[in-house]
């Protein structure tokens, strides 16, 4: 196995392992909300904290490994630097894990100041360990982003080349060629990612200072802004990292070519801006927030749909339309990931409308839409990448009957699971409730059944992946 592949699989397998553990926690929480089991609020909220922080990190790890590997195809990239970033993220995950179990930290992944310090039912060391864990994840993420940024800037002729500026304004970029679509994605993710990582470290330092010396006070509104800028953009970027290999994968499976166009470059510039400023929608119900920022939040959230649908989704649809598409598990996951991204995006757009958010804010509608595009989008994209690698390596794909079984269990289970959130959210059931008011327990029961069906499907996905991985390689390189 080459060093590049080792990096890819290290990131991917860790990401999938963390995702699986977090999924089991998620099922346990939905079962508690369905009143099938009773862990009690202390354990429930500890699980909720770990689930939120762990899930985002798990899909981020998949995205980082996948995009790094694609960039490695474009030129020299240090595997050692990628593994240092990986080690920092994993150390952060371990610290977060220890803070929650056995520490009992249960302030939520959002750890909104001053919650980690007021009315805490966990020891002080658990708060500190959690904050250090978040700092380490931010540090690893920032290191990875700097590597991507340095690579794209060097490889494509500085800011004007890497961003596509030269392409759009027809400047002679020789000797550098125009970056392929996945490299534009890497550049934009890196720029936003550096900002995100710095925000994560800023809030981490502020809260650690308060933890060490309680006389150091933090403004709660400032803390909320920085925390949500960090959390929103980090979660959002996991999708945009995955688009790198969606572009590549769709082109390979359809036998068509996908090039960087002026429109694609401009769309990614727009994405760079919208990812950074859409987070204001998390503060719609903070009426003291400077009013124009609320409008900016809604407009940016709305407009982010334009580059997403008109370029990435549209471009993928054009690649597939009337093509000789090979429908393997890899291509099915990539294509259905687009479905999850679009459907989750529709739920997000409705929630981003301030008059509707007045009724939906912090109800189960919020996890409804982000589970749709994280589970039904990014996670399926990650499975698509894994299967694409396995199919290309072995030169084989899965039999049609197995594809049907996986499709029915995975997508059927996912749909039932997600509908549980949407129906409850539309009926005002609050999110993050260990014990939910009606109709929460009923919808949580459907959701648990759906999640168990999904789990069954994913077990088949795992077994099939192991089978493909054990086949002899078609190309030893």
């Amino acid at each position, binding site marked *: 196995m080459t060093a590049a592949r080792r990096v890819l699989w290290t990131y991917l397998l860790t990401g999938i392992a963390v995702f699986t553990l977090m999924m089991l926690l998620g099922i346990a929480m939905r079962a508690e909300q369905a009143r099938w089991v009773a862990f009690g609020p202390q354990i429930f909220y500890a699980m909720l904290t770990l689930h939120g922080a762990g899930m985002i990190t798990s899909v981020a790890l998949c995205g980082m490994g996948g995009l790094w590997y694609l960039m490695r195809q474009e030129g020299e990239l240090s595997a050692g630097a990628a593994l240092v970033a990986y080690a920092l993220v994993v150390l952060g995950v371990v610290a977060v894990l220890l803070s929650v179990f056995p520490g009992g930290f249960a302030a939520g992944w959002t750890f909104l100041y001053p919650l980690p310090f007021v*009315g805490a039912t966990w020891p002080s060391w658990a708060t500190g360990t959690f904050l250090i864990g978040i700092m380490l994840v931010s540090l690893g993420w920032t290191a990875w982003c700097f590597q991507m940024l340095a690579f794209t800037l060097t490889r494509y002729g500085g800011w004007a080349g890497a961003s596509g500026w030269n392409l759009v304004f027809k400047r002679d970029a020789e000797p550098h060629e125009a970056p392929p679509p996945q490299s534009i994605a890497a550049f934009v993710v890196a720029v936003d990612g550096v900002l995100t990582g710095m925000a994560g470290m800023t809030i981490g330092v502020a809260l650690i200072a308060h933890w060490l010396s309680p006389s150091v006070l933090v403004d709660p509104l400032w803390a909320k802004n920085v925390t949500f800028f960090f959390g929103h953009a980090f979660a959002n970027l996991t999708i945009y990292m995955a688009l790198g290999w969606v572009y590549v994968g769709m082109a390979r499976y359809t036998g068509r070519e996908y090039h960087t166009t002026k429109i694609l470059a401009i769309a990614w510039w727009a994405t760079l801006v919208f990812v950074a400023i859409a987070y204001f929608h998390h503060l719609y119900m903070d009426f003291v927030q400077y009013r124009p920022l609320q409008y900016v939040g809604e407009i940016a959230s709305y407009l982010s749909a334009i580059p997403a649908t008109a370029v990435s989704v549209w471009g993928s649809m*054009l690649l597939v339309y*009337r093509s000789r598409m090979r429908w393997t598990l890899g291509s099915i996951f990539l294509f259905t990931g*687009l479905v999850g991204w679009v459907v989750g995006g529709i739920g997000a757009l*409705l929630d981003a409308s301030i008059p509707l958010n007045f009724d939906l804010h*912090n*109800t189960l509608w919020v996890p409804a839409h982000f589970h749709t595009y994280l589970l039904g989008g990014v996670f399926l994209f990650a499975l698509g990448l894994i299967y694409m690698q396995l199919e290309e390596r072995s030169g084989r794909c899965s039999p049609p009957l197995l594809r049907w079984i996986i499709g029915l269990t995975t997508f059927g289970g996912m749909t039932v699971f997600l509908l549980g959130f949407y129906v409850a959210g*539309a009926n005002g059931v*609050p999110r993050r409730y260990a014990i939910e008011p009606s109709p929460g327990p009923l919808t949580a029961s459907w959701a648990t059944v759906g999640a168990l069906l999904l789990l069954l499907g994913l077990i088949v996905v795992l077994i099939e992946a192991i089978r493909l991985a054990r086949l002899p390689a078609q190309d030893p390189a």
Partner: protein
Amino acid sequence: MAKGPLVLPAFLVLAAAAMAVLLLVALSTRLSPLPYSQVQPEGYKLRRWWFVILSLGLVAIFAVTLPWFPYPPLRAAAHATKNGTLYVKVIAQQYAFTTPSVLPLDRRIVFEVTSLDVNHGFGIYDPRGQIVAQVQAMPDYINHLPVTFTRAGHYTVRCLEYCGIGHASMQGGFDVR
């Protein structure tokens, strides 16, 4: 009026439409293949329309819905004694709300919401169990939430921001008559 129940059908219709389009694209691969050089120009023409319609549509939705934004007029407190508006203090603290027990029907009320400890959410549910208004309760800040109750009965208040392990049990309420 609670808008939550209206959102679900709208979402399902839009989601079904999006899924139908993607399904048709997937099914098109069963037809005889076309060269990409033929597909691309037509697709780009259609995309221009999509871009224009989506952009104008989203900007129009923003502009048209502005009157329904829940924010109070700026400097609301300066008008405290005008227009018969009733100003009501709400204090949130782990894990209870302090509110009056009775509030008037058909009169404009502005809740002045704050917290004595961590962030909370002040979510008001009408007698049918639908959310009618909400705002964050923040330490060091006061959020002004204007509401006019048009239905008599008992209103439940629930915390809508995670505030610690007693979050789900943080409830209050008042009668409107």
